[in-house]
């Protein structure tokens, strides 16, 4: 039986795990490797490290975090934030990452996704989409939800699939860090629009929010941050609750 995935998302700035609200107003929440290891030992299915500032001068410290993480953590690791070149991807993979999440560079030069998936395989390319609701539906954003692109989220997600992405990660920017629950409408629309797996991120504040997403949509995977970072609930508690509610997740 195929399982649905619970993924820990750890946003990083200057060697610290941080968390903001709507991707802004960042607060330190811990040391990234300690958090990642604790979530791994408690049964997390995957880990996503996102470079929140994507600053060039700080790239080496992100690589060090990945190198250290992959010595003890034996679940898939995705790295995102500031991935702009084939060389950036190679560095992330050489550090031990399995996948890279790409947003801004995909918007600027969509062919980059095709080139990257041809070189590294589509299984390693996650199309990252930041979504905000406007008067004409969902719009894709870049720069941590600050810069609109004019692209319709559903059309863009489909395009990312056609370009060669192996998965899509969608972040509901207005929900991020608010603990108000996932945006079910957004998740459901994107899931139905694409034929590749979808990871939904942004808004989970309690285990019930995850249950709502999994019961109301066919979404395969979700990313949580605040719940774990602020110790609202542990990975094992979340899994136990989902299993008792008959959700197919890994024990």
């Amino acid at each position: 039986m195929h399982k649905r995935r619970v993924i820990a998302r750890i946003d990083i700035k200057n060697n610290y795990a941080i968390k903001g609200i709507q991707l802004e107003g960042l607060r330190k929440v811990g040391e990234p490797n300690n958090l990642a290891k604790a979530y791994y030992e408690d049964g997390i299915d995957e880990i996503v490290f996102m470079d929140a500032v994507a600053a060039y001068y700080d790239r080496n410290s992100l690589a060090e975090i990945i190198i250290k993480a992959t010595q003890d953590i034996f679940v898939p690791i995705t790295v995102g934030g500031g991935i702009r070149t084939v060389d950036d991807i190679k560095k992330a993979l050489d550090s031990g990452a399995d996948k890279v999440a790409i947003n801004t560079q995909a918007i600027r030069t969509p062919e980059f996704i095709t080139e990257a998936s041809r070189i590294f395989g589509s299984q390693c390319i996650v199309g990252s989409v930041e979504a905000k609701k406007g008067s004409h539906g969902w719009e894709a954003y870049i720069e941590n939800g600050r810069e609109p692109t004019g692209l319709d989220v559903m059309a863009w997600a489909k395009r990312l699939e056609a370009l060669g992405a192996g998965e899509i990660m969608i972040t509901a920017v207005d929900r991020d860090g608010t603990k108000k629950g996932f945006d079910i409408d957004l998740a459901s629309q994107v899931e139905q629009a694409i034929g590749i797996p979808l990871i939904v991120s942004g808004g989970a504040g309690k285990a019930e929010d995850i249950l709502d997403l999994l019961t109301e949509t066919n979404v395969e995977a979700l990313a949580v941050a605040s719940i774990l970072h602020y110790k609202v609930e542990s990975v094992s508690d979340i899994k136990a609750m989902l299993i008792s509610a008959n959700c197919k997740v890994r024990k």
Partner: protein
Amino acid sequence: MTIPYIAVVDYNLGNVKSMCNAISKVGAEYILTREREVILAADGLILPGVGAFQHGMQQLEALGLVDIISAFTATSKPFLGVCLGMQMLFDESNEHGNCKGLGLIPGHVEKLSVVENKTKLPHVGWNTILSKDNETDRWQDSILKNTEQETDVYFVHSYAANPRDQEDILSITSYNETVFCSSVKKGNIYGCQFHPEKSAESGLKILSEFIALTKNKKGN
């Protein structure tokens, strides 16, 4: 007692660091190599790999690794192909037109069949392995010796192998309505479609059994 050393085939394909780290974690030494003498002297050999079949075979051929891998498998020391490394053990794949494989296990590789509007491809995530027709004995004296039936392991693939001989199938897995071969064993040659190095403690247990097989210098 000497620590077993495992050669990991280095042919520029994807993330091999996790595999190397996992080998260290379960108490063996690894060497990432494409050198004939180093590979043939190893206690066990692992062929990792992600991406396209044709590209993988081209790389193996260009680096002269096809013969070296065949020579190693003829020694009866344990060999493990992971993901694309498992698929390439077979005769051929129809990914991007027909492409010849290593031909070490009879059978072919084809795309997972999909249910319209239901099945997402690639098949990504954790899924269950179990023995075929409840023939649980088959797991004894194999890399799945200490693995329980219906263990979850991590997959990421769109193609899967169809072994010609049913007795080569070590485990099966179902994805929506499709049942596919998730691991194989033919003598000392093993293949896993899933990634043991990405399957948490369950995966480390499988790698640990692989290392244990090197200690009696036999794969079966």
